[in-house]
């Protein structure tokens, strides 16, 4: 742990009216690590991801630094352009666009072509997009509208879209939710493989404990808006207090 951390969140707070969603969360990510974020429903995991992604504004006194740069209060698009990408808990793709166009669209901001009206600029993105689409195993549905895809394929597509932004940190909010047991593992393997290849730091929220222990280098446990424990899978597995918060509150992991 001698390297410079890539993401440092300090004292992150978030309140909705009187409800404290995040009560001072600290989290440090080292470059290239795969961190799982777990905890019972309502622990604040998704809110924390939304703060890092800029979808939620941070409360007073909170700071988030990315690669040494203060990004607290930055807009989602600014954060995305800096290199923090995310997927959503509820799958979000451009349903009316084809699979290929979803990826070509994702390539536009980093290529500086958002406001181009030249069809050639779009055609130039076809081959890199097609490589991405094939790499995700979606080659055979490349020209189909995204809305016709299965949930698993849509999750692959959304992952491909965020990958196309060339992120340094990837935030995955329940990447395998709603999937069958076998598909969960193959989907996670695909994501981890791509992340390792592109040296992307992963922070993923996950309820499936098998997936968590199989794929995470380190695990952070949240409960009631605070960090409850943090450690290697072995340390967390041996921590009886962690098991208590899962069994002692409503919303045990599915």
């Amino acid at each position: 742990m001698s390297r410079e951390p890539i993401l440092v969140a300090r004292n992150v707070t978030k309140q909705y009216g009187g409800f404290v969603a995040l009560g001072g969360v600290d989290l440090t990510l080292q470059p290239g690590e795969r961190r799982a974020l777990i905890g019972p429903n309502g622990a604040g995991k998704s809110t924390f991801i939304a703060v890092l992604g800029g979808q939620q504004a941070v409360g007073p006194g909170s700071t988030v630094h990315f690669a040494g740069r203060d990004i607290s209060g930055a807009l989602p698009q600014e954060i995305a352009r800096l290199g923090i990408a995310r997927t959503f808990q509820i799958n979000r793709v451009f349903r009316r666009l084809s699979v290929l166009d979803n990826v070509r669209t994702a390539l536009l901001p980093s290529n500086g072509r958002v406001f181009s009206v030249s069809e050639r600029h779009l055609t130039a993105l076809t081959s890199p997009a097609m490589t991405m689409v094939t790499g995700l195993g979606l080659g055979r549905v490349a020209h189909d509208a995204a809305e016709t895809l299965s949930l698993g394929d849509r999750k692959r597509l959304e992952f491909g879209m965020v990958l196309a932004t060339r992120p340094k940190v990837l935030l995955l909010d329940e990447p395998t939710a709603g999937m069958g047991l076998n598909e969960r593992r193959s989907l996670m393997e695909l994501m981890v493989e791509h992340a390792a290849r592109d040296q992307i730091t992963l922070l993923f929220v996950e309820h499936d404990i098998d997936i968590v222990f199989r794929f995470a280098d380190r695990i952070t446990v949240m409960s009631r808006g605070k960090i409850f424990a943090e450690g290697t899978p072995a340390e967390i597995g041996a921590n009886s207090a962690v098991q208590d918060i899962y069994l002692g509150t409503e919303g045990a992991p599915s």
Partner: protein
Amino acid sequence: MSFEHVQSRWLFAAVSLGLAVAMLMLGPGIALLATEVAIMALFASSLGFLINYGGMVSFGHAAYFGLGAYGFALAAAKLGLPLWLAVVLGPLTAALGAVLFGALCVRLTHIYFAMLTLACSEIVFTVLFQAYDYTGGDNGLTNFMAPRFGLSPQIYAALTVAIVALCIAFLARIVRSPLGLAIQAVGEEPHRAAALGFSPRLVQLVACVIAGTLAGIAGTMYSVFQGNAFPDYAGVGITIDALVMVVIGGVKGFYGGVFGAIIYVLLKTFVSRAFTHWELVIGLILIAVVLIFPTGIAGLLQKLGLSRTARPSGEQHP
């Protein structure tokens, strides 16, 4: 770019040219009617672009039609500028209005966006209606030029069809471009788009300005066509007309506005001759469209394999 795509471009150009030439052979009455259809087709297409691709349902699109008309008419009638300059100033006025109103309206979404656009167009209408010294109030601006610059109905119809075809070709180009993808992406999933690095409001503003400018061109052409300008050109009635055209034509396809305008204007013209309550017929058709074939005429034709929607993909088969 594939053969299919090039082919559809030539087909579009050939059909447009054929239509423009055909205008020259019509009787004067039919030529006037065709001109109105063409102008409304452009106006409805610009609104359809905003709704179908940008995901923004505007209740105030007539503001830009009115600004296009008055931008031209005021420049010609009150400032005494040469007509060619006035013709350019009309759409420019609408574009400026779209920058201003667009920047305000894209701050909100859904019904709040719609209400804000309605408020903006009501402001335009009220100003045109009240600023009597400049706009002539509800008497409008009249007798400052010969309708159609004195051109014959046939020649003006041909000219209008050609300009409308160019504008629609421009819209098709936008839809197939990177900007078109950006507009659709932001229109469909603004949060996803932002998290990919798009600035949603900026993209929406650009879409508003494109749609507003094209609506302004329609407004200017209408003012030249009639040789006048009235506050009603910015009224909510014209917006509703265009909304109905878009729904009848099809809220998913590219040519919905064109089909909708043809049907709407023809019905309004011919049914109203035989039957005073022509709105009743429009209402029944609207109910039928929404309930039976919600993708509209364009969607129906597409299902029958007679038409294709202009989408960025589809033409990209390797």
